């Protein structure tokens, strides 16, 4: 007997809101163990709602969605297939057995560009259904080179499709506070960064290494490509640090891939890394509101710290455990 729960995960792409984390995976708890939430059957069929958006049509959304699904499907180290099932008059919400993308007017969500909701089988972690709504409060664009004062629809679709596939937010990015208290992105290292680029930007139509590592971890291509992992622990005064953001930087390739310490012991795993030595940088989640990523309290009272030495991701398997000791601010 399977048990299904509906989730509307706080996976929202916000304008001028909060920031920063490397790839997280959505999960379900089975017998006390967290299992990844993934699609077990492919191709992943989806419908497009026939409601138009602000400045774009339903057909524009279809075209943008097809480009975005092709981008995810094009990741060589992952196995992903999508299939457009047709247009529908149903809204992109609710449990109806259809995975639907569409526009919905939600003026109350004045900082939410789009959101993804799921129906997950908690006994297997299988995603049974997911809907993506794009907020018609905002003006979107599908212009090839972007359009000033309009949000690029394909970039937002690519981000939300990452959630639909089971990825959480990434924290690889830097923001600055504006005068009205909102945050503006200075730079990001992942499409899954939770804050959108400036209106008119189209750079997030292209996946970054962090996104690719995350999706390859969830849907590895057979045979598994030659990658390795780095495992370790972040501690402060001898105690584990929960919610620390750990970024691995490969000096040879320039790749930045991150993850978090996800338990009270401060343990972290960064998987799907091309073999080689990495510089590890640990930072608190201070470019975004922590509750954008974690439902429980996390430790943000420590300084940015580098691992004392480079850590090697081997050919297959994981590195020996590395401990990174951080100091309080």
């Amino acid at each position, binding site marked *: 007997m399977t048990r299904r729960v509906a989730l509307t995960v706080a996976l929202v792409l916000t304008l001028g809101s909060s920031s920063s984390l490397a790839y997280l995976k959505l999960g379900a708890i089975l017998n006390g163990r967290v299992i990844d939430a993934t699609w077990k059957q492919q191709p992943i069929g989806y419908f497009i709602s026939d409601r138009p958006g602000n400045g774009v049509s339903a057909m524009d959304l279809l075209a943008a969605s097809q480009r975005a699904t092709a981008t995810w499907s094009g990741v060589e180290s992952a196995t992903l297939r999508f299939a457009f099932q047709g247009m529908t008059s149903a809204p992109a919400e609710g449990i109806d057995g259809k995975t639907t993308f569409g526009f919905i007017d939600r003026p109350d969500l004045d900082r939410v560009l789009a959101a993804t909701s799921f129906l997950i089988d908690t006994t297997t972690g299988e995603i049974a259904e997911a809907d993506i709504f794009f907020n018609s409060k905002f003006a979107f664009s599908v212009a090839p080179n972007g359009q000033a004062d309009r949000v690029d629809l394909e970039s937002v679709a690519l981000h939300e499709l990452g959630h639909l596939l089971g990825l959480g937010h990434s924290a690889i990015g*830097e923001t600055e506070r504006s005068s009205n208290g909102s945050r503006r992105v200075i730079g990001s290292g992942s499409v899954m960064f939770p804050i959108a680029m*400036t209106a008119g930007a189209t750079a997030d139509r292209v996946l970054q290494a962090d996104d690719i590592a995350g999706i390859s971890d969830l849907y590895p291509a057979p045979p598994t490509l030659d990658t390795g992992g780095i495992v370790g622990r972040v501690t402060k005064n001898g105690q584990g640090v929960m919610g620390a953001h750990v*970024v691995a930087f490969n000096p040879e390739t*320039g790749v930045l891939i991150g993850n978090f310490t996800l338990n009270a012991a401060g343990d972290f795993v960064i998987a799907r890394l091309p073999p080689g030595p990495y510089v590890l940088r640990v930072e608190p989640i201070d470019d975004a509101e922590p509750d954008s990523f974690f439902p429980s309290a996390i430790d943000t009272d420590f300084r940015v710290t580098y691992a004392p030495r480079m850590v090697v991701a081997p050919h297959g398997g994981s590195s020996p455990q590395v401990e990174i000791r951080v100091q309080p601010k």
Partner: protein
Amino acid sequence: MSHAIQGDPPTRLAQLALVCNDPPTRLTQLALVCNDPPTRLTQSALVCNDPPTRLAQLALVCNDPPTRLAQLALVCNDPPTRLAQLALMCVVIVATSGVATAQDAPSLRPHRFTIGGAIVWSGAYDIGEATAQLRGNGPGASAPPVTLFTSDSRVTSVASPELRIGFAMTRHFALEFATSVTQPHIGVAIAGDAEAPSQQLPGEKLEQYLFEGGATWQLPVGLGAKLAPFIAGGVTFLRQLHEDRTLAETGQIYHAGGGARYFLRGGQGIGHAVGLRGDARVNFRRHGIDFENTMRTYSTFSLSLFVGL
């Protein structure tokens, strides 16, 4: 010729003049003047003090048929530049010394092995700078990137033991094989991080295995009865293991350099030679751990004790 051999015993320079010269020439005359006893320094001074034209004349007089020495002198003499003069003088000094000392300089015994142990100091070298960049935020698709931090990595200098085995093909030419294990560090300098100070990370310890094949050629230069200079060249297979032995990389090192053997015992073609050896090299490292995949240059110096078998 008769007055040229009046030295008792004849000096090396006089011998040279005699070899070159029949009948007596200016060179032997000069040698005689300078002789009692002529040191190497005075010999050099003798050659060097003459203007280039004189040098060419001397070389020509010395020579029937023309020798390489004379050819060099002549080449240099029309018109001789200061640099050419100096270069020529050096060649002349080396050549005359070689002729003079070829029979007396110490050397390895042909067709015999030597074995030696060395302490090698290898210099540090860079393995690449890198910038951790974030995608910049701006209209369009190509906003300037944002730097998160930069890293500058370097393999540190290290001293290590080395085992060297040689086989003398001739008195002057030897083939050699050497192996060593070294443990340098990869030091990493972090800079440009808006949230952290610039810092030097202690780094990762490497394990390096080097397997070298090369050759030495003893120069025909007399530096006394115990000292024998040589030049050397070769190639090394490099295997590098990261700390924890989780990943290995391989590369090649090409080297050129020279040094000298100082014979504590032997070196005259009989008995077992024992001596000290000093080497200085320039190394060109290709592949191995490098974040920019470019040729790296660094120096090594070594001091060894060798035994002829």
